[in-house]
């Protein structure tokens, strides 16, 4: 029945919506059935998605595959599927990580009271995420862009009885809305400036060189990515989003939704290709985020917060990579011509892929740790878990090695691709990204050592135990992917539209990059390993309190500023306007006018003298009188 790839894609796309609807309507009280329905759906999405991606089927690239959804006058909003190598890669990631997280959740959320709501939310999120992956135009992408925000809101707010979770979900949605404000303005400007928001059409016109230069459109669209991918200055929502259940953090706030900003940037790369100034701004925003978040991660005590800041930092890496832009490389030996690679897209998407694997692995690993330690999240109260949870220890270690760029693991290759590009394009960015890599190795090894090595520092950690098969299996799958994900061969050439854009260093450059990347890793990792002692207090705080305080201040500065704005500026301004509205407009103007205006005065008196009815008749009589007068 479903022979046609397009039909399979439609099925994959709509299944999670059906799953969410069934759970919402019929399975509210049947949590276990809801869990199975959602997980079964996730399995089908993974299977269908991987089949589509690896069978080499592509559609919607040259000829649109779409239906008109809303037409008013000359404006048509269509929903269409665009399935090229970029979306195939993204679909594979979403499918695989989605399935791992669903399976992991079966164990992690086993005793939760609101399982149906949780799995329904996951299905809704999968639907929205697939919409972003498949969208062939910016309006459609915006629709699903907002819907992933809803999924994120619902899942962060899973433990809604906790004030912190309620506040975090609200903050996440509003911060995203701020980004979406710019994003929607960008889409409208794009629609009115270029006359189309179709991605393929924009790409085709860019290739033909008929796209007029406009730096504002890509920058406004970038606002959407700043919100969704939590770049400076809207990064504040992501650490708070850790209030959600840990598998949600793995799926939404590490591997897929927050990466959607980078995916979207790669989608609109043609608009950036003609706007170098916009690209420069993107590059610096990403670079600053990478460094800032890495600094914040150093002082965190909560295992999930460390991972959250690490995610921010890595997202900054990807955005910076995208902003570095294209690269001219010699093709086929010394005498050959030069070709321009969209190296930024290649490197960003490559890192997005490997990061999805190892970060989802580490988040699920942290979930396994938290589950094992009876919901203890403070790394200073853990320690010695390597013996109690050997499988989690081994897989988590692979994840850590991957993110710090240990040779042979996934993160090594993708990080090198970004560092090489930075070295070729912009030395300052290169220096900052290298520093960030040192810090990454530093805070990662700090966390790893405190959690898994040394002595056990709390009763909860002393009784830690491994979760069931549903929790260990996803860890193994993701650990394997974190090891092999850096070898382009495993993708079988199916994503060459993206991966062939990666710039590889040759000769002397190759040696330089290898040396730099090894050096930064060893310096950062070694320093942390030697510096941190297994104790209940942060060694940095006790030994160098000044530096610790400075880092904490840096981390809290944004939240402090926003809190000040919300409580002291926005709220007071709102109260002031409310006061004006009550006293000014309705009080003085309205009542004052009522005093002098005969008409209103009459009406008031009619009311004061007695019944409403009398007035009503008076009014109707007046209307008829006027009528007569006018129609003569």
């Amino acid at each position, binding site marked *: 029945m479903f022979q046609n790839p397009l039909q399979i894609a439609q099925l994959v796309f709509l299944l999670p919506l059906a799953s969410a609807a069934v759970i919402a309507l019929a399975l509210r009280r049947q949590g276990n059935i809801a869990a199975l329905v959602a997980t079964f759906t996730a399995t089908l999405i993974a299977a269908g998605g991987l089949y589509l991606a690896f069978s080499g089927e592509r559609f919607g690239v040259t000829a649109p595959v779409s239906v008109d959804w*809303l*037409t*008013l*006058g*000359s*404006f048509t*909003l269509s929903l269409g599927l665009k399935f090229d190598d970029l979306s195939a890669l993204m679909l594979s990631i979403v499918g695989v990580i989605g399935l791992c997280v669903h399976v992991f959740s079966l164990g992690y959320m086993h005793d939760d009271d609101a399982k149906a709501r949780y799995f329904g939310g996951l299905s809704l999120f999968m639907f929205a995420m697939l919409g972003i992956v498949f969208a062939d135009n910016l*309006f459609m992408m915006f*629709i*699903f862009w*907002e*819907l992933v925000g*809803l999924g994120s*809101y619902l899942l962060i*707010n899973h433990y*809604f*009885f*906790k*004030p912190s*979770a*309620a*506040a975090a*979900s*609200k903050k996440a949605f*509003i911060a995203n*809305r701020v980004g*979406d*404000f710019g994003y*929607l303005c960008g889409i*409208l*400007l794009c*629609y*009115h400036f270029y006359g189309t928001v179709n991605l393929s059409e924009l790409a085709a016109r860019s290739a033909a060189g008929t796209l007029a230069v406009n730096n504002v459109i890509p920058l406004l669209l970038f606002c959407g990515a700043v919100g969704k991918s939590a770049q400076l200055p809207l990064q504040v929502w992501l650490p708070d989003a850790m209030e959600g259940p840990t598998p949600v953090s793995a799926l939404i706030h590490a591997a897929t939704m927050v990466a959607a900003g980078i995916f979207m940037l790669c989608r609109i790369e043609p608009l950036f290709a003609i706007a170098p100034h916009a690209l420069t701004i993107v590059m610096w925003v990403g670079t600053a985020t990478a460094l800032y978040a890495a600094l914040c991660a150093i002082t965190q005590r909560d295992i999930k917060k460390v991972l959250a800041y690490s995610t921010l930092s890595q997202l900054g890496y990807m955005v910076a990579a995208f902003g570095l832009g294209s690269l001219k490389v010699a093709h086929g030996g010394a005498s050959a011509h030069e070709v321009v690679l969209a190296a930024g897209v290649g490197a960003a998407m490559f890192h997005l892929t490997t990061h999805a694997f190892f970060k989802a692995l580490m988040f699920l690993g942290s979930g396994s740790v938290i589950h094992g330690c009876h919901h203890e999240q403070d790394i200073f109260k853990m320690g010695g878990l390597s013996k109690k949870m050997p499988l989690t220890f081994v897989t988590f270690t692979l994840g850590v090695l991957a993110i710090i760029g240990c040779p042979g693991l996934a993160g090594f290759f993708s990080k090198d691709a970004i560092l090489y590009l930075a070295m070729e394009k912009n030395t300052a960015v290169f220096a900052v990204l290298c520093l960030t890599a040192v810090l990454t190795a530093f805070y990662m090894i700090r966390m790893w050592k405190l959690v898994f090595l040394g002595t056990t520092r709390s009763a909860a950690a002393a009784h830690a135990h491994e979760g069931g098969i549903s929790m260990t299996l996803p860890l193994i799958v993701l650990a394997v992917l974190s090891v092999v994900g850096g070898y382009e061969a495993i993708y079988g050439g199916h994503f060459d539209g993206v991966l062939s854009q990666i710039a590889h260093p040759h000769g002397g450059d190759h040696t330089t990059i290898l040396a730099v990347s090894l050096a930064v890793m060893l310096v950062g990792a070694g320093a942390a390993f030697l510096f941190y002692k297994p104790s209940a207090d942060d060694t940095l705080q006790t030994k160098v309190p000044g530096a610790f305080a400075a880092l904490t201040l840096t981390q809290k500065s944004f939240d402090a500023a926003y809190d000040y704005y919300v409580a002291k500026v*926005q*709220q007071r*301004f*709102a*109260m002031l*306007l*409310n006061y004006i*509205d009550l006293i000014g407009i*309705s009080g003085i*103007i*309205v009542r004052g006018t*009522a005093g002098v205006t005969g*008409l*209103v005065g009459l*009406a008031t008196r009619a*009311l004061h003298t007695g019944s*409403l009815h009398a*007035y*009503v008749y008076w*009014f*109707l009589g*007046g*209307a008829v009188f*006027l*009528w*007569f007068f006018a*129609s003569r």
Partner: protein
Amino acid sequence: MFDHLLIAIATPLAAALLLLIPMPALARKVVAGVGFLMPALLALCVWAQFSVADAADYQFVTQYDTGLKDALGISLHLGLNGISLPLFVLAGIVGLAAGLYAIQSKAERPSLYLGLLLVMQAGLMGVFASIDVFFFYFFHEFALIATFIMVGVWGGRDRGYAAMKLTIYLTLGAMLSLIGLIALYHQSGAENFDLIALRQVIADGAINGSNQNVIFGLLLLGFGILVSLFPFHTWAPLGYGAAPSSAAMLHAGVLKKFGLYGLVQIAAPLLPLGVGHWSGWLALLAVGGNVLYIGFVTIAQRDLKQMIGYSSVMHMGYAFLGIAAFNIVGIGGVVLMMVAHGFSVALLFMLSTSIYHRTQTFDMDDMGGLAKQTPVLAAFFVTATFASIGLPGLANFWGELAIFVGAWKFSAVYTTLAISGVIISAVYGLRSAAKVFFGETSPALAKVSAEKAPTDLCWCEKIPALVLLAALLFVGFWPKSISEGVNTAVSALYSGK
């Protein structure tokens, strides 16, 4: 001949008259139920049979001479085009929900309460089914009078002041718009005071520019007051705060749309130069006043019902911006938004009353953590909130988006400012949801709960809520269900503008 439209108007009226006879509670419920159900069913029936391709023309047309035809050019001329059809359906569905909610409520003097609500319902069906401008106006007054009485008698806090203020404002608005309509009729030189005749006459020779400016100005002021255009908005939060829930649902959801409908269907297409003359001022008031100023005022509200009232005023700013844009996309967006806003605001008013029954307060600071006891109520309220802040998948998104697309051509600056309103609405919308439902149980709620533990929505509340929610989702997922007819009709009326 079976005249759907006339029966849809007459049934609630007949039911209201029947309720004057004393009868047992069950019979009363049945009579009122039929009175509310019939218009909704007939509206859906008409919607199913409506020919979208001919949506520019009036369909289901009937004409009855009321004896005033020769003297005044007035007759009961009923029919629906692509613009009035979705509003007619809106009136039917919101009426059904408000009616079902009222039937189970414990209002004093229930016969009179239901009877007045049925009178409102009849008026609403009549407003959107009328081709004749007199009856369009007449039905509005009809419903409005019932509203005043309901606020005055069954209202909550400050009902006396609220009823007075509501009456003064809305009567003034209605009066100004009546003067404008009469002036329009007079200036056009038409023989009949119905819209088809007016359109024909004006197609042959437009009204001169300066007269258009004056007449449209009058109509804008009059209709604007009725739709709470800044700075004539202060009646709305106060009135809705005091109004009994079903009356608030019908007024905010449907009756308020009379003014926008009058502008879109009658005033703007007949007075294009007048629109052009006033559009700058209109956009300024709509965006600076309704969207931004009222948006911030909404953030400051503590009273749940007042907050919903203010948020409704804010959303009207988008509609006025769409009218100022004066192109097919913008005007089409206004019609979509009128329908969507009607469903969402009615649902919010209804749920806020359900919340009140459980918390004994409208003060959001005294709520908190209600979701633990009432998860279904929380789910409905959060969904309705997301609808009202324009989340895709729910009806309101399409109208807002189309208005933004249309208005961008008119003024990118005003549109950008208006779009920033989506942040403001997210702030107050999510804040209210969090204050009422999430976090820990507030001391005040704990006290109320100790006396009588809040129970989740009963079926008598769930059914009307589901009716409105289904409508929001249906239009949200399938905007074509109304947009095709709207597009045809608006394109015909606004071609070349």
